[in-house]
């Protein structure tokens, strides 16, 4: 050792950085510096006063790591940091990497400091001090590392409207009238009793579920070394002693007779819940019943029934396949991408959405989850048949003069004919309800076409069919 460096307790990082800059400037190797201040047997010189000729450059990640490691309680932290600096300067491997022994050690130290700061934010317990004016609080805390200084900003931001003091053995942080200052530490101060602590203990004891004991999980996150300053931990032994017996009592008590009067409350509430009419007499009743539909399994996965909307006495009914992702979430038909395309084509064809009835052959969204999305699945024949009940009610109550079927599923639902759509598109068929059905493309089919020319052609056909359906409905 030829050089010794003594560092202050407060403002440690800047002091270390300044010393390290001078040392590396003179290219003083790590083994020639005693960072503990030269308390060894041999006399040592201070670092040279002047900045050295060499200027070291370090990645930002090193400074970030050093800012954290510096608060570690291990005396060798400053020497290890200088060793890392030396190796970065010399380009000897990557002392910041987890795969490097020194890097691993520094990262572990930084993590320990980070955890200690986090635990301080969690485990400081304030007690209120008496007095008038601004409310004052104080706490005693024993961190494992020198974390009060880096950890205090959090409290300043959180508790800006009160004065507070956090005392630790080595340092005291004081926040007064919006100013944070640091003072020497000391022994544990005597803090007055605080009535809220009793309420806190009540909460702690009652939020605990005696049916599930997981002591290891508790100790891993709330290590015993912090317990002496956590008032609620004093209750733990009694809570545990009683837990088994409490659970046993619950088991023994088993089922009790219901509270008197409960049945009447339940009956009243259930009677007021929406009911599905077996044979709806109006379009509104049909909608109400459809919202509770469980005719097939699609309702289990979908959000809600998407009922038709528009004019209840419309001359034209437009029937799509089934609600998509967006329709399922909003509970309205044709509001997703395909719906927007359809609404555009309707505007083009002079079809006023307020004067038609818009609906789907199947009222629930069928999908498979894939990654973060829900992918549309074509409804099966059975699902379409189950849902035909609702489509039939819509047809019966709206009594449209003309129905436009969009896509093969709607065509099948309305006509009972499952033959391919392409050759039938643009044709007029007789629906199962006895009225005319014009067959067209589903707007989603337009969206799926990648060739712009084909897409335009199909969109023109859809628009033409819309116009034709409108004319037929008006005549």
């Amino acid at each position, binding site marked *: 050792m030829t050089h010794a460096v003594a560092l202050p307790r407060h403002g440690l990082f800047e002091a270390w950085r300044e010393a390290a800059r001078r040392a590396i400037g003179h290219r003083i190797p790590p083994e020639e510096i005693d960072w503990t201040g030269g308390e060894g047997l041999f006399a040592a010189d201070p670092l040279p006063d002047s900045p050295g000729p060499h200027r070291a450059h370090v990645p930002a990640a090193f400074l970030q790591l050093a800012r954290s490691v510096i608060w570690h309680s291990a005396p060798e932290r400053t020497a290890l940091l200088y060793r890392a600096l030396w190796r970065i300067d010399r380009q000897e491997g990557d002392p910041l990497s987890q*795969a490097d022994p020194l890097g691993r050690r520094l990262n572990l130290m930084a993590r320990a400091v980070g955890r200690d700061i986090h635990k301080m934010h969690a485990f400081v317990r304030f007690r209120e001090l008496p007095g008038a004016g601004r409310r004052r609080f104080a706490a005693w805390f024993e961190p494992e590392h020198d974390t009060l200084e880096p950890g205090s900003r959090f409290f300043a931001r959180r508790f800006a409207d009160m004065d507070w003091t956090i005392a630790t053995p080595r340092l005291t942080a004081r926040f007064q009238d919006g100013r944070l200052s640091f003072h020497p530490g000391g022994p544990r101060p005597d803090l007055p009793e605080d009535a809220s602590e009793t309420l*806190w203990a009540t909460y702690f004891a009652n939020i605990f579920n005696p049916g599930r*004991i997981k002591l290891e999980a508790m100790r891993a996150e709330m290590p015993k070394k912090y317990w002496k300053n956590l008032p609620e931990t004093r209750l733990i032994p009694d*809570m545990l002693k009683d837990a088994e017996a409490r*659970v046993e009592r619950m088991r023994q008590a088993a089922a009790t007779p219901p509270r008197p009067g*409960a049945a009447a409350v339940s009956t009243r509430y259930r009677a007021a819940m929406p009911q599905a009419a077996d044979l709806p007499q109006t379009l509104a009743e049909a909608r109400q019943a459809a919202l509770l539909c469980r005719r097939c399994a699609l309702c289990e996965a979908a959000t809600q029934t998407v009922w038709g909307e528009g004019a209840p006495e419309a001359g034209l009914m437009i029937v799509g396949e089934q609600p998509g992702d967006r329709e399922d979430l909003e509970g309205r038909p044709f509001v997703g991408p395909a719906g927007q395309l359809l609404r555009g084509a309707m505007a083009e064809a002079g079809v006023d959405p307020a004067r038609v009835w818009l609906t789907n052959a199947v009222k629930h969204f069928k999908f498979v989850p894939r990654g973060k999305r829900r992918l549309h699945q074509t409804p099966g024949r059975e699902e379409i048949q189950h849902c035909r009940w609702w489509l039939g009610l819509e047809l019966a109550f709206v009594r449209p003069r003309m129905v436009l079927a969009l896509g093969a599923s709607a065509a099948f639902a309305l006509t009972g004919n499952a033959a391919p759509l392409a050759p039938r598109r643009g044709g007029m068929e007789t629906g199962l309800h006895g009225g005319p059905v014009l067959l067209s493309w589903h707007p989603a089919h337009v969206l799926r076409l990648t060739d712009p020319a084909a897409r335009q052609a199909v969109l023109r056909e859809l628009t033409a069919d819309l116009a034709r359906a409108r004319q037929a409905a008006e005549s």
Partner: protein
Amino acid sequence: MARATLQDKLAILSDAAKYDASCASSGGERRDSRKGGLGSSGGSGICHAYAPDGRCISLLKILMTNFCIFDCAYCVNRVSSNVERARFSVEEVVTLVLEFYRRNYIEGLFLSSGIIRSPDQTMADMVRIARTLRQDHGFNGYIHLKTIPDASPDLIREAGLWADRLSINVELPQDASLRQLAPEKRPETIRSAMAQVRLEGEAAQDESHAGKRPPRFAPAGQSTQMIVGADGADDMAILQSATRLYTGYRLKRVYYSAFSPIPDASAALPLVRPPLLREHRLYQADWLLRFYGFSAEEIATGTKAGHLDLEIDPKLAWALQHRGLFPLEVNRAPREMLLRVPGFGTRTVDRIVEARRSRSLRYEDLARMGAAMKTARPFVALPGWSPGALTDSAGLRARFAPPPEQLRLL
């Protein structure tokens, strides 16, 4: 009975709230009190204490009241239960939150409630508590509001204005069990409310329209809870249900809560020891869904009769069924495959991908990078290690599963 003190009420209404597993206070917007008010939030949450049940205590988790007109068989507060009842006033909740907060006991409030009079009235009272905290007291801490099923969309919208997180419990993984055990709850309205929360949340992030920022809406998103072990649903049904909830409503979390005995139980449900290990395996599988690129169907390949293996974790169970993909060349394998190695967590994988850019990794490096090599060993190959026949050995599963318990003499 004498008038209940605040302490009595707190005892009753925190006892009644403990069956909600969630206590998260993470995410949401960054706020602090330097420009007025009290409190801060944002970033990772803080657990201020832990109870001996291993659960974190981050928020003051209470019910506004445990009076309830619903009769959910699994719930201690159902109308037919004989538990002691209490109700907080708005001021009492506000005082408790602020005084606990000032002493650094909590990050904020988790408010749920039994349903009194009607869902709308209950929700309106809860919203009033949140509004009072925010508006009258400048409270910047975290607020989690439980959404009452069947509450009106307008009330949910206002709740999102004050709360950081909203949640509504699906309670049970299958609609049929919910209809049976909670006759007043309706799965379709629960899902509609979740859909609304998702859409409102997305609309609140959308600044594009008039250039004006829309009002905030539950910046920490929404979550839900499923009770495990109260109905006959198997683990795959639970995970498929969770997948639908994540993809459909962009939930931040699905919580799984092992059904535990409640005082004054209903005859409809068994009073058995809560299946804590099953709950743990479900959380592991949930992590695989959210962070490891697994689908529920893939996890299913490692299950037995629809249930996750209780002896080994779901990733290991999957890997043992797909040994043909292993051993994996750690220095060359894509990130998606590294994530599938048992014993490698997401952080380990990030470190591996980062470190192997500059040099070839050796076996000794992996343990230093946080990998659990005892588990990972049979599934990886890299300089310094080759598992040889270990990957395909018949006894591989037995190396991980706990030894069978010895029978005792009668």
